[in-house]
């Protein structure tokens, strides 16, 4: 059930350059399903900005009815969101979309989680849940530069974690694919979220593997009604999916990137 809720802001803190972590509390948390779902946040009452912002759920705490998002404050909406302080409220629509299928990874198997920039957050809840069901996780996380890296320690607690930065200021210099090509990890399943170029690079390498990719598109409604976020599917000129309601997570090879 999609709900709209004025959720209580429990905490807001800056994690890295332009990167914020926001924890919200409310009934909506009860209805959150797999990791990889997202919420659509109204960053300001009034008309400026007018549209909601889609942000992935980064971790869920069902016991306290809380969940956390991690976002980059870059444009108008996210900058306003970053100015909200604890004890305020945030207007949230969610949970939206379909996340990463957990049951595709079996106990004692290994999952490779590959994240890029603000695609990293949803992998955190995913990793927690995979580990909880006995799946080993390897994390390869790519960032622009050292002062934009976040959650490296948190991921390290859950499994082997490799950081890359474009400028080499932290971890391996280059892209996530540099680490992946170098280490030739053996894994049973791949989950990824990040910029389309990164997803493409993974598709080039792993199109024959069991893998799930989370996509991004500019959105209007976020619930499947406006057709803003469609993508063509591979091998069917008339087929299409909506990232917001059919996704954002799809099996590798399904969507034309």
């Amino acid at each position, binding site marked *: 059930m*999609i709900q709209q809720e004025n959720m209580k802001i429990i905490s807001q803190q800056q994690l890295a350059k332009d990167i914020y972590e926001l924890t919200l509390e409310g009934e909506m948390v009860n209805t959150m399903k797999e990791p990889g779902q997202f919420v659509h946040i109204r960053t300001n009452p009034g*008309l400026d900005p007018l*549209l909601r912002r889609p942000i992935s759920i980064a971790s869920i705490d069902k016991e306290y009815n809380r969940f956390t998002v991690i976002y980059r404050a870059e444009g108008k909406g996210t900058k306003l969101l970053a100015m909200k302080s604890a004890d305020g409220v945030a207007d949230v629509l969610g949970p939206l979309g379909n996340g990463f299928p957990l049951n595709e990874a079996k106990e004692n198997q290994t999952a490779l989680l590959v994240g890029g920039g603000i695609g990293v957050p949803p992998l955190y809840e995913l990793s927690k849940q995979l580990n909880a069901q006995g799946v080993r996780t390897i994390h390869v996380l790519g960032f622009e530069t050292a002062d934009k890296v976040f959650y490296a320690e948190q991921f390290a607690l859950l499994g082997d974690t490799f950081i890359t930065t474009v400028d080499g200021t932290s971890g391996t210099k280059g892209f996530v694919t540099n680490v992946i090509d170098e280490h030739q990890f053996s894994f049973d399943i791949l989950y990824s979220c990040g910029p389309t170029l990164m997803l493409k690079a993974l598709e080039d390498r792993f199109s024959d593997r069991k893998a799930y990719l989370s996509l991004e598109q500019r959105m209007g*409604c976020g619930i499947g*009604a406006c*057709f803003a976020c469609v993508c063509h599917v591979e091998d069917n000129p008339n087929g299409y999916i909506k990232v917001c309601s059919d996704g954002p997570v799809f099996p590798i090879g399904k969507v034309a990137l």
Partner: protein
Amino acid sequence: MDRLRVELPGISLKNPVMPASGCFGFGKEFSQLYDLSLLGAIMIKATTFEQRFGNPTPRVAETAAGMLNAIGLQNPGLSGVMTNELPWLEQFDVPIIANVAGSEAEDYVEVAKQISTAPNVHALELNISCPNVKKGGIAFGTVPEVAYELTKRVKEVSTVPVYVKLSPNVADIVSMAQAIEEAGADGLTMINTLLGMRIDLKTGKPILANKSGGLSGPAIKPVAIRMIYEVSQKVNIPIIGMGGIESVDDIIEFIYAGASAVAVGTLNFTDPFICPKLIEQLPAKLDELGVNHISELVGRSWK
């Protein structure tokens, strides 16, 4: 509540509030949020003869108090709408207004002819004003003679009343409306989107893959009010008003301007519960304004 009931050609509305075409799909998604029978009517997404994928993405961009869209009339085509969407909507007690689009006059005529026979389609909305389709489209909505011809041909085949949706991208909205009235239209819906563009600062290129798109939302409300004010004084057919509605005050402003009912588009994205919320708030507003029935307010700005 009968103080909100509005009778228009073909459609008996429980209340004057309906979602605008293209902002509500065919209702399925919103039906998960609330009971669609609460709505005055539903304007479903544009239907074309063939199914259409529409434009490449990005298809939307935000603007100050508004947004641009260039969806490009994505829809499952006439037969898809007739077999899947409309029958599904029959479970709700709500009249459907079918938005009809095309690239050639023939497309409009064929879609109108068939879709008007669906049991829950109580009226058509001729979309002669979509700025996002390359072929045809815009000319139908900017040249009075062309609009006249098309309306006439559609009227000949439609079994339900025909409303024509006006484009605001014209110098003289009144002649357009009068030509359409003369052609036999039963009502007007106005306004569609203004043609606009945004450029991505990073790439230097237009944000929308289609380059330009339709501007909607509160930003365009003053243009809509002005056009409805002008047109309602010069035609004798009713107007369903739209363009940036976000509050009951906005609804009253449209009705004062001369609209008999209203549609909410973009704001469904900002607040997906907006239609039932506004419907709920309307009676108190009528009390505040000291009127018994909403229709008493129609055109008050010039009457």
